[in-house]
């Protein structure tokens, strides 16, 4: 993954702005960060004082047993939820509750644990939907999509990165499970996000195929404009292979935020994360 942004021709890219209340010495290049974020649902405290940041060029994994708060954290990071306390910043802007649509245009994409597709759209159309957003052509009511060369070229590019070129005309519900997963990710990539959040991308995939899938994903990011990846995963092998840093959540709190070698060297941490991990 390149540590330099690859030709960010996006008209929606913004320079990170310094929010007024940051400490004077805290100039940061973090792409996304949470500062002291807590989230309660009534009496239930899902997250407690979580501060993490992901900088350009980083691959950060979020791990933890079920119920540790990973989903809540992901929903906060993707602007779906408003924190009860603390703030979430993406490219310097507060994104609390902004919602997925706004973030899709601002450079963040997300894939889903349970594969999400458009059953009646073809592979090409699915990718094109993202490209349309990216190229700002949403409100074009009267131009015929098929005749748009810009969109078609980009769709072909993305499809070939993910090995879906031969399936462009296939309707999504006819794809195999693995192809659907690839499509889910491919369409997210077609948004040319700076940050991509992979939510358990290999769940439901056989062990032998997990590494192939991850390799395809990570290779793809090298050719795309992705600057950082956040991975939520249960499979610690994958996490160990790809991450620059691992963030472990336990009962709503950050247990550890370390590079893999330090992470796995600490028996206390691995016990909590690996030992108590129930029902992958």
């Amino acid at each position, binding site marked *: 993954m390149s540590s330099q942004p690859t030709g960010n021709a996006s008209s929606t890219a913004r320079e990170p702005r310094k929010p007024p209340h940051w400490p004077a010495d805290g100039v940061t290049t973090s792409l996304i960060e949470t500062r002291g974020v807590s989230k309660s649902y009534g009496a239930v405290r899902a997250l407690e004082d979580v501060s993490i940041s992901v900088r350009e060029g980083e691959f950060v994994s979020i791990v933890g047993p079920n119920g540790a708060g990973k989903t809540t954290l992901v929903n906060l990071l993707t602007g779906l939820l408003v924190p009860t306390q603390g703030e979430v910043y993406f490219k310097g802007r507060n994104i609390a509750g902004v919602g997925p649509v706004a973030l899709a245009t601002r450079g963040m994409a997300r894939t889903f644990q349970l594969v*999400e*597709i*458009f059953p*009646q*759209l073809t592979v090409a159309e699915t990718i094109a939907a993202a490209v*349309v957003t990216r190229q700002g052509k949403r409100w*074009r009511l009267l131009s015929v*999509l098929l005749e748009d060369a810009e969109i078609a070229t980009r769709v072909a590019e993305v499809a070939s990165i993910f090995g879906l070129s031969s399936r462009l005309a296939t309707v999504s519900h006819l794809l195999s499970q693995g192809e659907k997963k690839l499509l889910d990710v491919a369409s997210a990539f*077609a948004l040319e996000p700076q940050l991509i959040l992979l939510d358990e991308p290999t769940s439901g995939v056989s062990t032998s195929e997990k590494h192939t899938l991850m390799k395809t994903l990570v290779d793809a990011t090298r050719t795309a404009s992705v600057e950082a990846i956040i991975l939520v995963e249960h499979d610690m092998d994958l996490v160990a292979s790809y991450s620059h840093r691992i963030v472990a959540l336990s009962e709503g709190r950050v247990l550890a935020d370390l590079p893999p070698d330090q992470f796995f060297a600490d028996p206390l941490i691995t016990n909590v994360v690996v030992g108590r991990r129930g029902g992958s």
Partner: protein
Amino acid sequence: MMRGSALLLVAIATLSLGLVPILAPPFYANLLVPFYGYAIALLGFNLLFGYAGLLSFGHALFLGIGAYAAAVIAGIWGIKEFEVVLVGAALAGLAAALPLGWLAVRYTGIFFGMLTLAFGMLAHSILFKFYHLTGGDSGMRIPRMRLFGLEFAAYNKIELLAGPFYYYCLTLSVLAAFLMWRIVRSPFGLHLRSLRDNAQKAEYLGVRVRQFRLAAFTISGIYGAIGGAILGFRTGLADPELVYWTHSGHLVFMTVLGGFSNFLGPVVGALAMTLLQDQLQSLTQYWRFVLGAILALVVIFLPRGLAGLASDVGLRLGRRWAPSAAGARDTA
């Protein structure tokens, strides 16, 4: 553009329709005039139903808006230019669709259906009760209007409908269909279909789900109102029964009969229904029963409607004649 064979079929159909006033007695052309009204209204309805996935049980509201707009503009204000009425109806449809749509598209599925049903019936009761304004159940008269400024004084009403007005409507329908075709094939149309298939994922790809649903609702309202104006011209009357919920049910019926997953399906449905209803009414006074039975059969056995059936048959024939041609999927 459409596949060559489909385009050819459409051309032939349009040509055949164009020949009706010339080759057949005026009765048939007169019979087909409301078909055009429904065809336009249904093209709009299906943008909402087939493409955006929202089933409205109150779409007849817009037919009523169009008809009453015609009554007000041509009848009360005395502006008898049909072009003005069409624009007026479209604006009225827009004005109604925006607030109603804004409220309704916050929901999907059954709640959307019920809310639109309620809106339609609310309009019905308003039109019915406030008879000082709306003429109550007698409705409002829609006088004869001028087409392109021409009075056609030599023609009586039937001749006007079966002649100049017929071609006027045919042309209008072709234009409306062409416009809708482009909308449906546009990037906007793609986003619409994506939010129909999976609204959550669509949001993550930057699709403005609520806004686009509202846009679809509004466009469908405008088309509905234009259809209503045509219906009004023909009957000469705007009455509350136009917006009764069963009329909305008939719109859905026609759409499903023709096939909602096919662009021209609803148009086929409108034509089939117009001809069918006429035939049945001359055969038996219990034509509603037969229609109901047909709807039941279509729902159970023919979910893709007549157009779907035709396209399946066409594909099978095509495969027999050119077995090597890749069976392209029916473009939705």
